[in-house]
């Protein structure tokens, strides 16, 4: 099994093994704990870069595939089946990239460091597992694995109302995913081949070897959609996000916003669209409406928040609204834009939460009115915050713009009205971000607690600099990412086109 | 000419009386005796069926029922003794602390 070529399983094992090692490190030695977890997460990141270099953009099928029969209980055949393609490659690298930075950012955690690090590494295993697993049950297992550590991270190391927030987060996601489990099982019964292999099921569905009557397909789609809608979050299911973010410690917040929201949109792209195309096409208008409402609603509510973290949480509701809009516009530009926006949102919102966390470490408050005129006191933090803010409101030349532009442009090709409405989201995002920047950083320093704050130290700068470089790289040279997504996104688009007559503005991918 | 129904009706009546006794009487010992009465009614049914179906198993079951009844009586009465010592009364309704 351990041939020369790259092992996805190894990518999962390194953090897992790290978690085990952490368990044996004596809890008194905090620095050793931090060191080992940093070591393992960085090792995973380096290893994931190998996948980036060895990735063949032209390949039609999944790459680095490993398939081993795992649970053969009577009639159930569950395989350990992992693989990667254009879409999941970058999400994995985003996860492995953010993890070391969040570990580095958790120097503020003093109590119970060992379980904290253990959960972080377990979380990483879960997240990578979600993005690489191609077997429905394996996906579901990893989906649940990510839930438990996040529950403890919020519940133990969180703020005042942490238990409420953790429980709300857990129940919201769990309720959604139970429906998904039911859908997986019903799908299993419709599938004579008696297995849960995603690739095979999609294959058989497209060749009509598995015949799903439309109402059944609709129900299955809704079940999957609900599980992912809670995670994304899409408009009506989003109320857990602000609470979870406000109460979560910095690192958990970064991971929650940076990666876990993408599990929802990734799920939509990997499971809902390919497996139930006609249902997705039928429900696309309704979902796009929800997305647009989410964009505008998220932005408007963010406008009036008094708590910075809640503001950033609502802003990610708005940004993820863009991603969903892109996915359900079903053409190459918009889906590639959506995938790209997932990456750029992960970076910019992750960085925003890191910065807010740094503010929290110094002032132990998130309320905007406690700050004011910090640019005098902390010029470097103000500069970084300005830069990340610009990337998040989509200033051209930075990463946010490329994603949003492609989404809106792709959606415009299909439905001009939708794109025009969603475009107002860009204005609103500028308004609330600039307003919060002005209230926190500009003006004179009134609160004298702010006068004695220290600027960014070396560790914090080391966290932020890679993100800034990556933001500029994604902004100026997005083709490194877009080129690798083309084939896999084109496959999803073709799958949808099978059930839908091609639109007037047929956006064809000229392979080169 | 006596048929099985005679015996079964008698057993039913005895059983019913036993049940009424268990539910209405508040004295623990009386309740306990009524339980014994119900058991006895059941034995009667067993013997009737053993007799009319011509199978011996009925009687064996009665034996087992009796042993169980004996064991139950021993432990039951010990509990009653402990109960009365502990709560000072034999009234079942007083011992209602184990509730929501």
């Amino acid at each position, binding site marked *: 099994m351990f041939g020369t070529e790259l092992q996805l399983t190894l990518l999962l094992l390194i953090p897992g093994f790290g978690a085990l090692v952490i368990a044996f490190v004596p809890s008194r030695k905090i620095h050793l704990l931090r060191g080992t977890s940093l070591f393992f997460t960085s090792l995973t990141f380096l290893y994931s870069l190998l996948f980036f270099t060895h990735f063949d953009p032209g390949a039609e099928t999944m790459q680095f595939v490993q398939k081993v029969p795992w649970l053969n209980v009577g009639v159930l055949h569950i395989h350990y089946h992992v693989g990667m393609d254009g879409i999941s490659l970058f999400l994995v690298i985003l996860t492995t990239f953010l993890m070391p930075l969040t570990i580095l950012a958790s120097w503020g955690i003093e109590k119970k460091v060992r379980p904290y690090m253990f959960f972080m590494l377990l979380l990483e295993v879960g997240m990578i597992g979600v993005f690489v697993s191609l077997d429905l049950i394996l996906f579901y297992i990893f989906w649940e694995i990510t839930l438990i550590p996040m529950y403890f991270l919020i519940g133990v190391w969180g703020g005042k109302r942490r238990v409420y927030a953790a429980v709300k987060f857990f129940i919201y996601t769990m309720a959604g995913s139970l429906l998904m489990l039911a859908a997986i099982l019903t799908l299993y019964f419709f599938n004579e081949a008696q297995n849960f292999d995603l690739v095979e099921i999609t294959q058989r569905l497209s060749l009509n070897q598995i015949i799903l009557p439309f109402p059944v397909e609709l129900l299955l789609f809704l079940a999957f959609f609900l599980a992912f809608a809670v995670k994304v979050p899409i408009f009506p299911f989003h109320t857990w996000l602000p609470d979870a973010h406000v109460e979560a410690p910095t690192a958990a917040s970064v991971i929650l916003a940076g990666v876990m929201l993408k599990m929802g949109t990734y799920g939509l792209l990997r499971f809902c669209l390919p497996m139930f195309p006609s249902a997705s096409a039928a429900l696309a208008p309704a979902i796009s409406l929800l997305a647009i409402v989410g964009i505008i609603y998220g932005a408007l509510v963010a406008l009036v928040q008094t708590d910075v973290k809640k503001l950033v949480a609502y802003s990610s509701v708005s940004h993820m609204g863009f991603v969903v809009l892109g996915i359900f516009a079903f053409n190459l530009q918009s889906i590639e834009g959506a995938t790209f926006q997932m990456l750029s949102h992960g970076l910019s919102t992750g960085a925003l939460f890191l910065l807010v966390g740094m503010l929290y470490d110094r002032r132990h408050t998130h309320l905007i009115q406690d700050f004011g005129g910090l640019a005098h006191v902390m010029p470097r933090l103000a500069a970084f915050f300005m830069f990340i803010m610009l990337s998040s409101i989509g200033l051209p030349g930075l990463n946010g713009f490329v994603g949003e532009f492609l989404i809106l442009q792709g959606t415009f090709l299909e439905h001009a009205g939708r794109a025009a409405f969603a475009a107002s989201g860009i204005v609103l995002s500028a308004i609330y971000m600039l307003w919060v920047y002005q209230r926190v950083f500009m003006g004179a320093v009134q609160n004298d607690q702010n006068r004695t704050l220290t600027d960014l130290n070396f560790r914090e700068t080391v966290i932020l600099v890679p993100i800034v470089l990556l933001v500029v790289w994604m902004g100026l040279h997005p083709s490194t990412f877009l080129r690798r997504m083309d084939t896999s996104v084109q496959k999803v688009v073709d799958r949808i086109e099978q059930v839908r007559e091609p639109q007037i503005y047929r956006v064809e991918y000229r392979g080169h | 000419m006596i048929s099985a129904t005679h015996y079964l009706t*008698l057993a039913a009546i005895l059983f019913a009386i036993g049940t009424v006794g268990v539910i*209405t009487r508040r004295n623990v010992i009386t309740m306990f*005796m009524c339980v014994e009465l119900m058991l006895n009614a059941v034995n009667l049914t067993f013997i009737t069926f053993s007799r009319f179906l011509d199978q011996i198993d009925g009687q064996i079951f009665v034996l087992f029922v009796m042993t169980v009844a004996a064991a139950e009586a*021993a432990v039951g009465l010990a509990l009653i003794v402990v109960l009365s010592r502990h709560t000072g009364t034999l*009234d079942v309704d007083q011992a209602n602390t184990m509730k929501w």
Partner: protein
Amino acid sequence: MTLIVFYGLAATAVTAAILVVLMSRVVYSALALIVCFGATAGLFFQLGAQFIAAVQVIVYAGAIMVLFLFVIMLLDPASEVFLPSRLKRVPVFALACAVLFTLVLLEAADRWAAAQVFTDSIAGTERSSGPGGEIETLAHSLFRDYLLPFEVTSILILVAVLGAVVLTRQHHETE
């Protein structure tokens, strides 16, 4: 003739049972219970289960009721003054249930009879051959088919005895 004997025994059993329930003094209800057991033993005898009738008299009437009387004497419940209990509606419900119960059992007995499941009526004939035949078959099946339950019940008795001793003894220490 056997009919008369049956009705006699049945009447005594039922009245004894009613007395058990109605007597205010516990001792009298204990004695009524003994009478009831005796009547049922007679019925067993009539049904041809002589051994069971004997065991009934020995075990039930003899051992268990003696134990009851022993405990009654120990605790002297007569002096008990019962406070009005909060449960008012329970007796009415119980009576109604009892009546329903008997109706249902009767219905069941009729169905069994209608199904002619039974071989024949008692008609006073001795079924098996000579004295001891019935006990012989009983012994055979008890010690061959049901040996395991037999052993298990012996353990059960042992446990019961130990339980009773432990429960009451522990009490002594705390005295």
